[in-house]
């Protein structure tokens, strides 16, 4: 989530005050991402320093300052919108780690671990769906945020299903099973990072 670019997007509609930006940011993301006011002013200060926004205040920080986007700011926003996010290196996923560990800790039933996470994720998806069913019906921003979250959780459940099948197969063919050593060095090689 890029707060600077979100603020630039709001400023591209016209000059705005800091508090107003915070309110519009939260409303625009379906109130799923709260933003504190200190963060707003810190970010605005950085945008001003970098020449992406300018203020018409009397030199002092605070609510009386009004900000507007500059030409360089518009340019930066356009470039950011079209720049793909960094999805090339896998994130160090806690759930992936847990399943990898469950597969090699003696006396642990990895299927049971997977099942517990699957149920938890389904419950989470039920909650998001209730939100979609209720408030998000008339709130496009919220509907888009909720969809993104549902697709993400759905992908995690599918991965759990695939892991379940792989572990079952590996147990049936122990000679070809290589859960013991392979995953960890491989992750290191890929340079996993957040």
């Amino acid at each position, binding site marked *: 989530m890029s707060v600077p670019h979100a603020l630039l997007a709001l400023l591209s509609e016209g000059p705005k005050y800091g508090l107003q930006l915070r309110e519009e940011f939260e409303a625009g993301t379906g109130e799923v991402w*709260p933003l504190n006011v200190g963060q707003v002013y810190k970010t605005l200060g950085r945008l001003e320093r970098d020449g992406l926004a300018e203020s018409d205040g009397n030199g002092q920080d605070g609510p009386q300052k009004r900000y507007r986007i500059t030409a360089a700011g518009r340019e930066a926003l356009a470039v950011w919108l079209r720049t793909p996010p960094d999805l090339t290196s896998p994130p160090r996923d806690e759930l992936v780690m847990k399943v990898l560990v469950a597969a090699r800790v003696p006396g642990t039933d990895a299927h049971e671990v997977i099942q517990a996470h699957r149920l938890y994720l389904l419950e989470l998806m039920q909650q998001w769906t209730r939100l979609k069913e209720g408030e998000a019906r008339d709130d496009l921003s919220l509907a888009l945020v909720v969809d993104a979250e549902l697709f993400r959780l759905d992908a995690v459940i599918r991965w759990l299903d695939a892991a379940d099948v792989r572990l079952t197969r590996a147990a049936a063919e122990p000679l070809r099973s290589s859960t013991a050593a392979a995953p960890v060095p491989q992750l290191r090689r890929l340079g996993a990072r957040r």
Partner: protein
Amino acid sequence: MSGPEQGGNGHSAVNVLELRDVSKTYGREPDKVRALVGVDLSVRAGEMLAVMGPSGSGKSTLLTIAGSLEDPTSGEVRVCGMALAEMPEDRKARLRRRVIGYVFQDFNLLPGLTAAENAALPLELDGVAVPKARAAGLAALEALGVAGRASRFPDQLSGGERQRVAIARAVVGDRRLLLADEPSGALDSVNAADVMRLLHEACQRGVAAVVVTHDAQLAAWADRVVLLRDGRLTGQTARPPGPESLLMRREVR
């Protein structure tokens, strides 16, 4: 006879569907296939239940047994409190026509009939007078927002509209139990969500529904999700907290 399961929308604790220790076996040794093994399950009026599981896990068998289209090898099935095993075939057929509604993956609308005629069909087959059946069919179309398409034929409807008509047909009259097998068919995800919303709304009006799906996003519409694996129920969701807890708790970086 109420089961230990949680869920529902706070309607009365009447179990519309009850399965007790239900098993289903196909074929003989050594090629015996155990499609269901000791399944205990109850669904209350107003509750939407989703059944998930990999292919071959017994999802569809569960649905055909619940719909009295097939008998279990052992165990007991009750619909609205009535034991199916003790019921003569003609009474079972009547139950299927009056109490149970079906929604299929490929909609199964009859091409030579209009939307209104399709929706009224189960009542007409049950001997309800045509004008009365048509009125009920129209009311069902109305509830699903497709009354304006009443005189169109299936091939003149969009995929989403066709599925609405199929749901109207499934709930027409006074159905108590809705059985759906992958009800969103090949619809895109936004239209598929609409189908689930409509089924969920039918439940809020008091119908009990069992929806079989492999899609977690669709299952998440249900009040309760049960997981099936190799014919056994292996888990179910607890009643999740309200959606309010999702809001305003995340940090922005």
